[in-house]
């Protein structure tokens, strides 16, 4: 499939160039986000009836993992309200650049942090506490508030969106999986960028800001770190930025060589497997251990969790590719071949999310009428009984998704192995075994 340039359509182009539509969505999202924080802090402590739990971990999560990431990549980041207040402080304006900018520190993020290890750590921190986080409104409220204040704080110290780029636990995996999405932002003509004076898309100009994600669009080859904020479309004086429709997983044709990204793939794959076992499996002891944060059992759970992600899964993967010897160092082969785990991990998350989203979706309708659990009945649906949805198609859908993910990963493994000139068989076998494990856990 050839690429289709969406920005050729005047309506879409005008929507993306104008700041107002995006600002309108930002404001609505910010209101929802702050309401979710408050609902978590002052609303009913019963998670299944609290807006913060129901709308963040069921509604938003469903939209994110089932729709936004697979089809729009970093589409969520384009409308995420978290950077808005900090960016306003940092820039001294909400819309066009002001004549005079506030004197914040505006530091570069230290080089050692310019990778996604901090995002890996922040995700793992949330993952280890996820059982409590997903069910306790207070904790969700605190975490949401902490993310907002962290973004504001980092905006006053560092340049651009340091929080989004280097710390946001959600942004890390969205970036990883955005490589599979059929939407991309790219330049039209490289030569135009080469000769462009001042590089306003990166450095900013009177018409817009430099890339908040610290990317030079002229060198953009994959979606991972482009937040689709559309600022470069507004600043490019040559109309050289395009938003394209493309085949799925086009970015994966060029495997990554970075260990932080490779381990992100293992973190996400392992987390999906562990969650499927702990949250959806029949083992009460595992559940208890995950829920009783601070207890001895929880510490064992945490150690096992980290061991699976950092030792077992990468260890088995390494053992598998040891035999694929060639001139490249093992580390490089490891990083490149782990690209094959990206579609698999995404599909694992889709299959896992289908279970609890469909099981709990009816809470959304009830919580809509009584978001704080105060006895309101705004839309007459507050007393709607819990009802799992589409239970008959759940297992077939999960199977289809997992098998589809396996095929997708096998194809990606072939391409990645071709790039480093080794056999894809060990990686495919690894993916097959992981898929069988996930099928067993989910079905």
């Amino acid at each position, binding site marked *: 499939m050839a690429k289709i340039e969406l920005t050729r359509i005047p309506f879409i182009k005008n929507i993306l160039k104008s700041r*107002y539509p995006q*600002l309108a969505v930002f*404001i*609505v999202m*910010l*209101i*929802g*986000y*702050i*309401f979710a924080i*408050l*609902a978590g802090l*002052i*609303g*009913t*402590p*019963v998670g*299944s*009836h*609290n807006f913060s739990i129901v709308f963040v971990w069921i509604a938003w999560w469903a939209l994110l993992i089932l729709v936004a990431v697979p089809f729009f990549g970093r589409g969520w980041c384009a409308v995420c309200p978290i950077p*808005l*207040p900090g960016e*306003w402080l940092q820039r001294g*304006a*909400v*819309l*066009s650049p*002001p004549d005079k900018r506030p004197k914040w520190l505006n530091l570069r993020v230290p080089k050692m942090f310019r990778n996604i290890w901090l995002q890996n750590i922040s995700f793992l921190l949330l993952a280890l506490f996820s059982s409590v986080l997903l069910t306790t409104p207070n904790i969700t409220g605190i975490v949401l508030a902490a993310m907002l204040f962290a973004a504001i704080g980092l905006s006053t110290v560092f340049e651009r969106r340091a929080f989004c780029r280097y710390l946001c636990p959600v942004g890390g995996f969205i970036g990883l999986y955005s490589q599979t999405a059929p939407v991309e932002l790219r330049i039209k003509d490289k030569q135009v960028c080469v000769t462009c004076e001042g590089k306003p898309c990166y450095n900013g100009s009177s018409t817009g800001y430099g890339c908040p994600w610290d990317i030079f669009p002229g060198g953009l080859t994959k979606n991972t770190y482009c937040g689709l904020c559309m600022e470069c479309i507004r600043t490019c004086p040559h109309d050289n930025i395009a938003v394209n429709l493309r085949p799925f997983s086009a970015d994966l044709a060029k495997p990554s060589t970075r260990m932080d990204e490779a381990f992100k793939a293992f973190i996400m794959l392992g987390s999906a497997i562990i969650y499927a076992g702990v949250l959806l499996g029949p083992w009460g002891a595992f559940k208890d251990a995950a829920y009783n944060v601070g207890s001895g059992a929880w510490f064992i759970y945490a150690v096992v969790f980290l061991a699976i992600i950092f030792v077992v899964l990468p260890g088995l993967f390494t053992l598998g590719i040891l035999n694929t010897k060639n001139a490249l160092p093992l580390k490089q082969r490891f990083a490149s071949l782990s690209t094959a785990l990206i579609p698999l991990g995404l599909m694992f998350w889709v299959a896992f999310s289908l279970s609890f989203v469909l099981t709990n979706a009816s809470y959304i309708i009830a919580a809509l009428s*009584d*978001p*704080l*659990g*105060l*006895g*309101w009945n705004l839309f007459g649906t507050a*007393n709607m009984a819990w009802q799992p949805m589409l239970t008959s198609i759940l297992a077939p859908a999960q199977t289809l998704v997992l098998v589809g993910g396996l095929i997708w990963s096998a194809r990606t493994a072939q391409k990645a192995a071709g790039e480093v000139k080794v056999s894809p068989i060990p990686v495919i076998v690894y993916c097959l075994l992981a898929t069988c494990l996930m099928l067993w856990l989910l079905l």
Partner: protein
Amino acid sequence: MKRPELIARFLIVTGILLAVGAPLFLWARTPLIHARMAEDGGWNPDIIQAQVGKPLHLKITSDDVVHGFAVGQMDMQSVDILPGKVTDITLNFDKPGIYTFYCTRWCGLNHWRMRGTIEVSGSPLDPEPVSPPLYVSLDLDLDAPHEAPLIPADQPSAINGQPLTATNSITLSREDYLTHSPYDVFTELKNTSLTEEQRWDVVAYIWQSNTTSVSFANGKELYAQNCAACHGENGAGDGVFADDLAIAGESSMQSMEGAMDMVMQSPVDFTDPHRMLGASPALLQGKILRGGMGTGMPMWGSIFTEEQIWDLIAYIYSFQFEYQN
């Protein structure tokens, strides 16, 4: 500053204020009673003001597990309070006083302590004279041992006792029944020609004849709802919370002064004939009214009506006697 920038800032600030202010305002104006397990605070608030003749509207929600709500000594069905759901209740009081509201679901180890009070002010529409409970009139020492020195070899049978009672023209007034233990009556029957076994059967029949099928059934229901969690469904002191109470030890007891001197007691075994055949209904009334005084047994006097307590006592004796179906 350019106008669009000004409008954008205004919209953002307004949005933030709206998102913060509206829920806080509405939250502050919605009076809710929160039910939590006793370990997490119980009812909040636990003191409610009301007036005689003026309906009291309550909105109650549970913050954790399923609780039940009922007001002691009122003719009302208990209402389930579901987690995250708000239940509306309207109460009417026709006489002033301090009423106890309590949880009617076994919500946790300290479920029994989950109580609050409704302070009802106003003039009584129909004042009633207050009389002291029977155990007070009799000046019974509730904490002294009242054990039966002699117990039957087999469970006494009311079925066998009925013809013996008729043949020997044995009668016992209601007052005597209330103030005497089964062992007292057994002892008083020693002047008859009955054997020991027959005397116990007669006692069993007398105890059965002092209740009706309706009050017995009511006592059974009250027992199942309020007593069985500790004392066990069959009265053997082995309810679902019995082990937890033993494990919790003194920490599960009231934190009143001198608690360290108290000895943890397991729930009373109603199948123990020494204890039960030596206890008069008046004594049991006192124990139920007052509660365990340092054990896990709560004070039921503020919850059960006098009639309910007699119904409960009649049922408790059934663990000793074989009654007719």
